[in-house]
């Protein structure tokens, strides 16, 4: 449907600017709640678990597991869209790269990487092992 490449709209929130700003500097950081201790994603000004506004930005390990995957079929080439569960708990949408799209499976252990794209930094994932049965 709509094909929007730019990660940040003109109306990007302060959280968006902080998140994508860090990505641009090569750091993958997400909010962690200082009250309940849980991470969340996407970044908000209040914890969606406990409601606290007492948050900090912290670097997750970057390790995660593919929760679901679809291959988007386009004339210009196929690519994956995945949901990844981070070790720290939050789930995010991303793309698994550097392997044939058909081999990206649910349960695949993956590791985060920041790619520089024409329209800004993009968080992607690469395989870091085999799918465990």
């Amino acid at each position, binding site marked *: *449907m*709509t*094909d*929007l*490449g*730019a*990660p*940040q*709209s*003109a*109306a*990007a929130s302060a959280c*968006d600017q902080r998140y*994508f700003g860090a990505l641009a500097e090569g750091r993958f950081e997400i909010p962690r709640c200082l009250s309940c201790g849980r991470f969340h*994603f*996407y970044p908000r000004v209040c914890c969606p678990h406990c409601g606290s506004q007492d948050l900090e930005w912290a670097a997750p390990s970057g390790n995660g597991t593919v*929760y*679901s*995957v*679809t*291959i*988007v*079929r*386009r004339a210009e080439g196929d*690519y994956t*869209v995945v*949901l990844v569960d981070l070790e720290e708990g939050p*789930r*995010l*949408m*991303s*793309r698994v790269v550097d392997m044939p799209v058909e081999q990206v499976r*649910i*349960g695949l252990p993956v590791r985060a990487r920041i790619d520089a*794209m024409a*329209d*800004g930094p*993009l968080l992607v994932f690469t395989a870091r092992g085999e799918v465990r049965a």
Partner: protein
Amino acid sequence: MNAHASRGSIAILGTGLAGMGHAGGATEQEIIARASCLAIERSGLRKSDIDGIITSSLTSPWWVMRMAEYLGIRPRFSDSTMFGGSAFIADLKIAQMAIDAGECENVLICYGATPRSAPSSSRINQMRAELDPQPYEHPYKAFNPVSSYALAAARHMHEYGTTRRQLAEVAVAARKWAQLNPDAFSRKPLGVDDVLNARMISDPFTALDCCLVTDGAGAIVVTSARRAKALHARPIYVLGSGFAHWHRQISCMEDLTVTPAVESGRKAFAQAGLQPSDIDVVELYDAFTINPILFLEDLGFCRKGEGGAFVEGGRIEPGGAFPMNTNGGGLSCVHPGMYSIFLIIEAVTQLRGEGMARQVAGAQTALVHGNGGVLSSEATAILSSVL
């Protein structure tokens, strides 16, 4: 189970359809107005009797005011909550609360759009995206909404062994019902292999796992059950209803195999004092072939994970043991962006025995279930020709 005191407190009177398939140059406002006039006339009411209006639009945030102005209605009550495609079933609950509270008597619920004859320009699509920014999903260029539902289907297949053939059976059954419905848009024969071999869009969905893009408008009028008996020979009572929304974006859905239909269904059955085995005909929002499988499970017609096996072997086809999506659904009948108004109208047609070739014999109680966003909002209602 004891029914709630408000069980069946409102009823559906007239219904109207307009611009089905291809609206031939009419605007969405014009086809909604035509469907609305028809529904009001068939309700035994005059337009001046309508004192409540509920509608929503994928494009205009001012929609309920625009439609009321166009129709010449000054409503005592109005609502335009954007739930996505489930809206018009959720609106039954909103209308019931307003009518029960004495805020109004006769509520028009209407929707229509013309995405087939007048597709949105890329500028409008860009504007819609900017008004509903999703900066943590947009960069990955999912083909939405298809890809979001595809992610749910892939997870269901992974956890429960659901197959692409089972998904295809949903599309094939919908087509067989559509062949019995003169208002349906796609009526050519369709087999499981046709669905499997169609162009892959976003795995596991081919183009034929996805709903149509057609024009169409639908309208209904609801009033109190007490007034309904005096106004209409066959009022259709809303025995129970409920809605729920748990997320907006697919990446924020907690379990891709469990939808808010669990909650909306529980509310609707509790208010009606009924259970799934009491239902004669089922109309489920089939934006994609995985949807009815998820909803059959979440609404309690089968256990979690058994939806794929449930739809196999012609069970949901005409003549099958479980009549479902009897108009041909969003997959083969009509789908103008948001669809749930057509689920209600088809259920009313069935419960009045007016389904002609597709009539389910003896249908007395129906369940309608609408879906919105990306499995984000769900709304369920139980309708019956008897209180």
